[in-house]
Every structure is written in C-alpha cells, then in structure tokens.
C-alpha cells in the first residue's frame, strides 16, 4: 500500500473524454466533461444539461431569456470607446478595440435596453465578457449611468447583469472614476424608490464588485459564479496558501451574507418578475 493517496480526481483525462468535439455540433462541458449536442446546450440556455454548470452567455442571450418574445429597444447603442490616454502595451488600445469589435460584433462591453418582462417595462443592462473581458472603461460606465437615469426617469425596475474582470486598465483613472459615476447614479435611483436588481454572473470581480454589482436592493447570482473583489490568484499570492474550495463562489457569498439568493438561469425571468410584483403590488 502506498503512503499517499490521491484524494482529488486524477488529472489524466480518460480516453473516452478525449473524443474530438467538432465546433458547432457538440458542446463539451468544462466541468463534468459531458458531451451534449450544441442545439440542446443552446436550448438549455448554455447550461450543461448534465451537471448544471452555467456557461457564459452574451447580452443577446440574456435579453432573449428576459424580454417577452425577445423584443426590446436598445438604449444608447452608438457609444464607442475613445483612447484618451493613447494607451499602448504590447498592443495599442485602439487596435484591441478594433480586434474585439470584429471578433464579438459588439461595440463595447455592455448593452443596455428597455422592454417588457412579463408585461412590465424594465431597464436591463447586460455586460459582454467577449469584449476585452467585459472590462469597464468610459463607455461601460457611461452606458450604465444612462441606463440608471433611464430607469429613474421612467420609474422602471432596473436590472444590471454583471460579467466582468473589472476596470479597463487601458483607460486607467478614467475607468476608476466610472465606479464613482455609476455608484452616484444609483444613489439617485435609490432616492426615487425604484428597485434595482443586480445579477452577478461568472465572473464578477474587481471594480465591478466594488461599485454597482454590490449595490443592488437585491444582489442575486447565478450558481457557482466567481464573485469577488481581488482575483483568486492575487489572494493566493498574498497569503501564500491555497484557497479553500468554493472560495468566492456565489454560494460562498450567499453564506457570508452578500447575495440574497442564487437563481438558475431557467428561473431568472419568473423569479425577478415575482419579486418586483411584490414590491409594486
């Protein structure tokens, strides 16, 4: 008998899991490795039918889930990033934007909209991770700010769906100040008694957590999303220890009192409608 026994799963992938999965036809879950036909996976709202892992979904996907018959009007769709600092690392910021736009078909990392959810008018902002990691620069801050204003002026419940690595470094202090901007706008919204639901999805970290994502009247989350202020790698390096399992997950945040409830994507629309109906009744 050996002295040590492996407690966790063996990292060697079994042959049966190594089957090539041609793009577009099949979806292979990153968590349970189950293979599902792509169309079933999409029909299941990008949630693995086997293990329930919520995979990243773009703004169009969420708008489709939420709005009645998928119909909505986009707010301020024309805002695009400028390059106030002429920022350049290995790649120029302007090139990054062009590349990201081409790849994702998006103009920036958030889309904001208004439309009916179960017959009630809502304002919904949804971040897109596909655009520079969903990072918040001036455009994201401004669009979210305007969406908050729109909800306030039209007295519509507001939902912001977060999915972001944090502030956009390429706009440096401009990005930082978007945290102050969005939080200030939310303070005005709160005064009007308009409900704000913050939905945190995988991942919600950094400057997003330290501003609008944590300021909901209701902070809700998708299962097993990574939510935190500092990134896990930074914390691990700082404390010099491995992080406990489930650290910074939605469940961890609910346990520590920062998330009201965790909601499966399938139940999102019904649950937020019920919640808001309770407030307005």
């Amino acid at each position, binding site marked *: 008998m050996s002295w040590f026994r492996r407690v966790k799963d063996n990292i060697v992938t079994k042959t049966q899991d190594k089957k090539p999965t041609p793009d577009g036809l099949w979806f292979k879950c990153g968590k349970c490795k189950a293979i599902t036909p792509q169309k079933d996976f999409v029909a299941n709202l990008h949630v693995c039918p086997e293990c329930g892992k919520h995979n990243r979904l773009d703004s169009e996907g969420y708008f489709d889930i939420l709005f009645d018959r998928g119909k909505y009007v*986009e707010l301020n*769709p*024309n*805002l*695009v*990033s*400028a390059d*106030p*600092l002429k*920022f*350049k*690392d*290995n790649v120029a910021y302007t090139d990054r934007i062009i590349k990201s736009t081409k790849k994702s078909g998006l103009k920036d990392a958030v889309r904001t909209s208004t439309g009916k959810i179960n017959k009630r008018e809502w304002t919904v902002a949804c971040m897109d991770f596909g655009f520079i990691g969903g990072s918040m620069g*001036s*455009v994201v*801050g*401004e669009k979210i*700010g305007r969406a908050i204003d729109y909800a306030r002026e039209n007295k519509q419940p507001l939902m912001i769906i977060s999915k972001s690595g944090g*502030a956009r*470094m390429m*706009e*440096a*202090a*401009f*990005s*930082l*100040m*978007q*945290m*102050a*901007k969005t*939080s*200030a*706008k939310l*303070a*005005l919204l*709160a*005064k009007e008694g308009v409900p704000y639901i913050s939905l945190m999805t995988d991942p919600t970290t950094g*400057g997003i*957590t*330290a*501003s*609008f*994502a*944590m*300021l909901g009247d209701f902070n809700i989350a998708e299962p097993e999303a990574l939510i*935190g*202020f*500092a990134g896990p790698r*930074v*914390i691990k390096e*700082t*404390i010099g220890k491995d*992080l*406990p399992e489930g*650290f*910074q997950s939605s469940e961890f945040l609910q346990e*520590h*009192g*920062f998330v009201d409830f965790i909601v499966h994507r399938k139940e999102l629309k019904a649950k937020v409608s019920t919640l808001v109906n309770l407030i307005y009744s």
Partner: protein
Amino acid sequence: MAKDKEIVKEKGITYFDFEKPIQELEDQLEKAVETHDKGKVDMQDNIESLTKKITKAKKELYGNLNGWQKVQISRHAERPYTLDYIENICKDFIELHGDRNVKDDKAIVGGFARIGTQPVMILGHQKGRNTKQRQMRNFGMANPEGYRKALRMMKLAEKFNVPVVTLIDTPGASPGLEAEERGQGEAIAKNLMEMAVLKVPIVCIIIGEGASGGALGIGVGDKVIMMEHTWYSVISPESCSSILWRSWDYKEVAAEALKLTAENMLENGLIDGIIKEPLGGAHQDPQAAFKLVKSEITKQLKHLLELDSETLIAQRIDKFSNMGVYEEPAVASQP
C-alpha cells in the same frame, strides 16, 4: 531599468538612485561647511556656489520627474503619513475607533478635530514606519471594516453638520481571505454611493499613493486634490506591468502609460487641483508640507461651506458623471 535600491544618507533622509547627483552635491556641501567651521580655510564662496548649484539641480530634477520616479517618491519611507498631518495641522484631535461591527481597522484612522477654528471630521489611510507598525497598519491596506469605519465617521460628520477631510495614501484595498469573506467589494461600493450624496462638504487629498478602489473608497469628494509627487490610478504600475506585459519589468513603461501623475490627472479633468510640495518632496521639509496642506484645506472648505447641501451634492454628482471619454456618432445603427 532604474533599481529600487535605496541609499541611506547619514543625516537620515533616504535618496533614490535618480537623486544621486543631488546627494553628491549635498555631501560636498556638508564637507565644505565642516572645513569652514574648523576655521582653517575660508570656504564661504564655495558654500554659496554649492548651495546655488543644489537648488538649481533640485529644481531641474524634481520639476521633471517621470511617472515611475513620482511613484517612488510617493512611497518614500520618510514621507509624512495621515497621523503626521493630523498632528501638525489640527488641534483637539479626538480619534474614533471601530466600525461597530467587526473591529477597529488600523489601516484607516480618523476622528473629529479642528483646523484653525473650523471643526472637521478628518480621516485617512495610515501606513507604518517600522516593521511592527507596518504589520499593525497592514501597509495602509484597509479591510472592509476600515471602509465601514470611515463611512461611520462620515455619517457622524453629516449628522452634526461638520465637513469631511480625507487623506488618501494606500497601495490598494487589502486582498485576503477575510477581506473577501467580509465583503471588500460591498464595503467600497457602499462608500462610493454614500459619499456621493453626503450632505456635508468633502475634501479629499492624495498625500501618497492613490491605488484604485482602495483609494477611491474614501475619495469621492467635492474637491479632490493631489499633492505634487503622488500618483492616482486604477492599478499600480507593477501590477499593470505584470498583467499586460506578463512581467514585472515594465513598471516604468506602465507608469508612463497609466498617466498617473498629478499633472496628468489634472489635465484629464479627473482631479480638481495640485498642492505644490517642498523641493524634493514632502519628506524633505515636512513642516512646509503641513502648512501647504493646511492652507489648501482651509481655502477649499471656506468656499464649500458657503454652498447648501443640495447644490453641493448636485455639483459633486455632476462632476463624477462627466468623467469619461467616449465617442457617440449620430448615426443610428440598431443591431
């Protein structure tokens, strides 16, 4: 690449590598004075010319510091910290402790005090001077209870209609297990929201490092002023280098790219003013620095106290709402 290595000068002040020419001149001056005092040789002319030379060299060097050099000066181990400012510009300081929930975070200090005749709530990040203190102050990196303690103090100020002064000097909010468990993000976010609508004037001064959310967490003010040799950005140059260049070696390049100096920040309309520092930085002449900071606070408060709270809040929110640069072509292009 300039090295971080510090040279300790006998008289106590530490010089960075880029300050070496100044240090050499000052050493020469010291020797000249010594010789002169012994009375063997008349060095008066020599001393005068050296003094002039030093002033000229200092003006040239400190007037043209690059981003990374400013970052280094902002972190100088002998720079005045929050408690030094409070002790030297305030009277009747009564320190308040704790967030009434978890504990007293030593990385943020504050309390009621008087500047001139004006009562204020003054608070800020506090760093330590030696290993023991640094540990106690967690290097000026606050935990959630620190931000909640700050908010509690600001709310007290609002209740008793006393203006708030915050002094910012942090390498960032504390990253750690407990910080996450107790909601670091939520604590900072709450401060941003509450400070935006606080009914009393808020003056924020960056006295050292202004790193990201950790700084902004007590930085939403009617007037945000940076001292001359400080920095303020979304990330430290080191972390920026490590993330974007995947190496720690690009911190100088990153410091330039981030446009984190007081001049850059003022140009970009992200702060409201700059406090000139004594030649070479606040640590070279702390008393002069205290005077400059005190007069700036007095000046700003005098103006802000004339405004009613509604105007104050509206102007504050407007100011932050207007920050950001983007383009909005008129062409409607619905997706």
